[in-house]
């Protein structure tokens, strides 16, 4: 069992859980993820590790309530525990002194961007971060990202905070201005990552994206997470999750992500029904 030691709602629909997992906290590197299962009935889902503290043996997971499992996860708090948690999984981010790095993320991609950006900073890069959210209230980790970035730009779709517009528009302005950029790392919704890669492609700037396909075991055993990069099949769980964005087949990723849409809705409905039911009702 993996004890939940703290829980915080960062924004509507976005929750942070601190979990006791000393082995992961000790060995995790930026870019890696964990796979967890809440209980006996649960599915295995991958979540990126937003932060870790080897001293207390805890890791921080930040996620958005989108489906049954993340809603259930959001209901956990101190005193409850996860049945299973495996990690760290995936390859760590390639971190070295590139020069100027741009960390660009939207929505729930920001928590993954944070440890990577921190690592870029520690490696001596000039770190620019461009963060986006639909609206001000949905923006997370602004303070943390600010602390590890030399330049922090915030964009909101509705203009409620920072620059009115998308993160990709802000990057485009930078590129057009001729600002030096040596490495871009983007994490966020698939359409955002796709646009981002199209922007940097003409400039030949190495652009890495962290992919989030459906996974089961997370150790290269099943192939559920297969993606296409440079026309070749790769497994995001062991070959990634970061890949050269200019080579990624985003269309395939989108389609494979929607593979269980129907069942996911059934699961979520069932979960909501249970939430509405009188408490203490046994699980069927």
């Amino acid at each position, binding site marked *: 069992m993996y004890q939940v030691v703290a829980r915080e709602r960062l924004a509507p629909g976005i929750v942070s859980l601190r979990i006791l997992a000393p*082995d*992961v906290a000790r*060995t995790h590197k930026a870019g890696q993820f964990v796979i967890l*299962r809440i209980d006996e*009935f*649960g*599915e*295995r889902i991958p979540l990126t590790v937003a932060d870790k503290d080897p001293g207390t043996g805890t890791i921080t997971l930040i996620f958005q309530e989108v489906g*049954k*499992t993340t809603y259930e996860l959001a209901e956990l708090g101190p005193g409850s525990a996860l*049945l*299973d*948690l*495996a*990690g*760290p*999984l995936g390859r760590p981010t390639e971190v070295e002194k590139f020069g100027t790095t741009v960390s660009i993320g939207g929505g729930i991609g920001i928590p993954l961007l944070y440890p990577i950006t921190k690592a870029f900073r520690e490696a001596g890069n000039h770190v620019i971060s461009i963060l986006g959210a639909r609206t001000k209230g949905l923006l997370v980790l602004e303070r943390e990202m600010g602390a590890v970035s030399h330049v922090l730009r915030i964009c909101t779709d509705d203009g409620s905070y920072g620059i009115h517009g998308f993160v990709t528009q802000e990057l485009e302005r930078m590129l057009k201005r001729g600002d030096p950029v040596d490495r871009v790392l983007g994490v966020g919704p698939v359409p955002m990552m796709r646009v981002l890669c199209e922007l940097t492609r003409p400039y030949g700037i190495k652009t890495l994206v962290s992919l989030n396909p459906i996974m*089961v*075991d*997370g*150790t*290269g*055993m*099943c*192939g*559920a997470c*297969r*993606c*296409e990069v440079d026309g070749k*099949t790769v497994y995001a769980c*062991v070959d990634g999750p970061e890949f050269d964005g200019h080579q990624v087949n985003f*269309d*395939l990723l989108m*389609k*494979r992500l*929607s*593979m*269980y849409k129907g*069942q*996911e809705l*059934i*699961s979520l409905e*069932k979960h909501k029904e249970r939430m509405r039911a009188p408490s203490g009702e046994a*699980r*069927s």
Partner: protein
Amino acid sequence: MTADAKRAKTLPRQPMPEQAPCERAHNFREVALGYTAELACREAARCLQCKKPKCIQACPVEVDIPQFIARIREKDFLGAARILKEKNSLPAIAGRVCPQESQCESACILGKKAEPCAIGRLERFVADYERNAGKVQLPKIAPPVGLRVGVIGSGPAGLTLAGELVKHGFSVTVFEALHEPGGVLVYGIPEFRLPKDIVKAEVDYLRRLGVEFKPNYVIGKVATVDDLLQSGCDAVFIGTGAGAPLFLNIPGENLCGIYSANEYLTRSNLMKAYRFPDYSTPIARGKKVAVFGGGNVAMDSARTALRLGAEEVTVIYRRTKTEMPARAEELHHAEEEGVRFQLLTAPMAFLGNEGGWVRAVRCNPMRLGEADATGRRRPILIEGETLDIEIDTAIVAIGNRSNPLVPSTTAQLDLNRWGNIVADPDTGKTSRDRVWAGGDIVTGAATVILAMGAGRKAALDILRTFGVATADGVPAVA
């Protein structure tokens, strides 16, 4: 010929009670129901009790078969279980999934003139009897020898080795990447062939002996083999199996609805997707399912698809039934349940719809040519004809290669050109000091019993290496 032998030959081999095909094709309960005590005694009476039995040598772990059958005849079922467990620590599992027809039963003298004695069914009966009676006895555990072994992977090889060494006073920790110990026994083999409660009982038995299990522990990520050796393990055994799926490498293979057998079976078996939505893991419940391959895993996949509600399940195979590596019993069960076979047919491409789902597989007819290195006749493409088979789900069950997670993070560990660990077949010794390996990670995809045999051999070699006396009190010689 003795009177007994004459009588044995006239007794028919007792059939295994089974769920009717039409019924079982729609549920996940075990297909074979097991012998009753009466059936077991009747079958045991057929054994010739040969003075020079051939069956023992034909068993990868050399179970004293005539002896355990003799106990059944005396209705001493617990005594039979004790004899079985001297050599085979997982008899309830081996009795279900061993290919007896090509091992012990193929060597049975009775089989020359009549049908061989049903050794596997008897083994299963005895193990089930002991477990169901709640009479599973713990063997004597030797006093601690002050040695620690780390076992990577909790499949049949690792479980067998763990059981052997813990009995000899080793402190044993088994590291498992998934959340449930058992390896292929829990993620691969379906409930209807090997109920998961049985695997759980075997794992619990090892726990009671003192084996420590660490699930969710991915060696190669959270720690390496070297970390284990440096942090207190005197020996490490690698039994990580052949857990990386092969795909067909044809166009369209990443369309939605196309699974590796590993994924399909893991979703259904380990994650219990067949009980969705009570269990949260989803699985495609296709109406028209194609399975590629001709081994036991292909049969398991096809039969799982039927149970998940498919209207039509077709096994597509490049050669003919004669060349199929699946056990005769599995093939027979699949046919009985209504699985169809499209033989001498090779997939060339998957075709998708606009949503990115598979809608058909384009195939090419084949004919058989000369025998290849494996002795099977090689399939040859018949040019110019193709055939589109409409499907909405596909399962690729053409084999596995070794998972590189452990080998690639262990320095100076010799691998062969397929990425399997090179280990002495008699001892499991690898090129690394204090590191042993066995099972599919060494041999490539093989059987549960061979993996168990490898686990046992490695355990014995570890005892020899560390100078620990074996169970019969003989001091082992290094």
